[in-house]
């Protein structure tokens, strides 16, 4: 068991999501930074899709009731185990009774706690993710609350983790080549023109050239962007159609909405563009109030980034497996 000692609102149990049910109106949900969740799970010896905790309001702390391996990935800032500073992106062993604490991270938005064996909440429609809109999945279909106790599985891989931890080079560093850094303080987010792009004047220039700010009316469902409103040349209402996270819709007010993990499954607003999927984790780590710019991309570039991410994940899996086997042999 873990027991939630302290939590802010909207921290939830998530995994890689519940795809496959959009056709009956069910959002996929899942981690806002799925790459961090995958790496965390690999570090603790879980399947990539095991359930962990997404922490997006801090401080957060939990107590382990038995010895287990855990890792904190995603956000920057050092987690604390019984007040001892640890590294993020690093697997450690916690003893029964120890308390893990996450303070507000310096720059990023969301931290992921992965626990050996994964959180043992019921799988609903193939996933342990919390569907906040549908009030099902995860921990009773709701955010975590102080005092919640959640079982975790028995790790099949309680391999020895070195006392000083087993770390990984975080994606922002390891994948620097394919994920460009901030430009003048704005996160570059790659996107492809969407179905109604042509409705916006000057080839959507006002959309691509300005710096947008993530408004406070943003959450796991969508990011509302504030800036100079953009208006289509004609006012249309589309027939309802399926949408996916990353779609950038422009409601009549002219301030775009980027649908995120809890994206609605259907939409009708004009779509000016769509964020390429491999950039969504960076958007998931962008905080309210931070700034971003959209950069025109191509299918070829999206594919190249997807492949670089896949190589990185495979490398982490292979290397951490090798290290653990070596440690086991020495034990």
């Amino acid at each position: 068991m873990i027991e939630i000692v302290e939590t802010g609102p909207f921290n939830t149990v998530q995994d890689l999501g519940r795809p496959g049910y959009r056709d009956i109106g069910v959002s996929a949900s899942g981690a806002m930074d799925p790459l961090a969740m995958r790496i965390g799970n690999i570090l603790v010896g879980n399947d990539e899709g095991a359930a962990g905790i997404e922490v997006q309001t801090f401080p957060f702390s939990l107590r382990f009731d038995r010895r287990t391996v855990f890792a904190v990935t995603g956000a920057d800032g050092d987690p604390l185990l019984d007040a001892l500073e640890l590294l993020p992106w690093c697997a450690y062993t916690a003893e029964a009774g120890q308390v893990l604490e996450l303070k507000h991270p310096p720059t990023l938005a969301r931290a992921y706690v992965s626990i050996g064996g994964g959180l043992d909440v019921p799988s609903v429609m193939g996933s342990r993710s919390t569907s906040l809109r549908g009030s099902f999945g995860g921990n009773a279909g709701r955010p975590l609350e102080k005092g919640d106790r959640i079982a975790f599985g028995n790790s099949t891989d309680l391999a020895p983790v070195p006392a000083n931890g087993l770390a990984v080079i975080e994606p922002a560093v390891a994948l620097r080549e394919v994920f460009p850094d901030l430009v003048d303080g704005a996160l570059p987010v790659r996107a492809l023109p969407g179905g109604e792009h042509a409705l916006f004047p000057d080839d959507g220039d006002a959309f691509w050239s300005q710096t947008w700010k993530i408004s406070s009316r943003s959450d796991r469902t969508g990011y509302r962007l504030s800036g100079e409103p953009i208006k289509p040349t004609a006012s249309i209402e589309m027939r309802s159609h399926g949408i996916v996270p990353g779609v950038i819709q422009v409601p009549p007010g002219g301030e775009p909405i980027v649908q995120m993990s809890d994206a609605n499954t259907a939409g009708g607003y004009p779509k000016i563009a769509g964020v390429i999927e491999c950039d969504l984790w960076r958007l998931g780590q962008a905080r309210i109030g931070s700034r971003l710019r959209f950069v025109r991309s191509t299918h070829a570039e999206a594919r190249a980034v997807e492949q670089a991410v896949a190589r990185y994940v495979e490398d982490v899996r292979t290397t951490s497996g090798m290290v653990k086997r070596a440690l086991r042999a020495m034990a």
Partner: protein
Amino acid sequence: MIATLNNHTPLREIVSAAQGRARVSSIGARSFLLEAPGEFDLAAQRRIWALSQAVGGWPDIAEIVPGMTNLLTIFQEAPQDPEAVVVRLLEAWDNARSIDLDGKTIEIPVHYGGEHAVDLPALCDIARLSDREIVRIHHEATYRVFALGSAPGFGYLHGLDPRIYMPRKTVPSLKMAKGCVTIGGMQTGVAMLTGPNGWNSIGFAELQMFDPASPKPAMMAPGDTVRFVPARIEL
């Protein structure tokens, strides 16, 4: 939360895609939306159902989401040649014959009027009909489930009598109750979640239509026939 319906201009035309030819656009790098040309009608939807069956069997598809005379296809990865995907989708559309899905008939008992029918008076004004006539027109029609979406188990129903079309609200109701029987433009449906909703409520249905624990979570499926049966009329 993000309200998905706000500030809709009333009476805005629901436009069709390009006339004649279907249109394909992309959302991000691995999702493609095909929009049928022409009218918003059962004939177009039957072809979308046929297209869904064909495309759903492609080996490189992760997921398909049939919409209202359109189909979103989500591929497993960003395609090497997006133009080839567009061509494949358009060819599949050209080859799609009309099929009729073998649906079941669902009867939904409705309490017309009453506390949840907050938009019935406004509909009377727009339609220039009495509340009694509106209720009769609504429950005498037979509806087809075109597609599901927007909320778990929510069915977009086609077959609303044009006399009681009513545009979506400019300012949505902030907390419309789950179970409200609503009209949105030329469509009708039953609200599946309590929350912001721009459709217009004329009654209430008690029926449980989504159960995540069930092997078939959604009661409605595309192709089903829906009849609203007045359980109580309170005007």
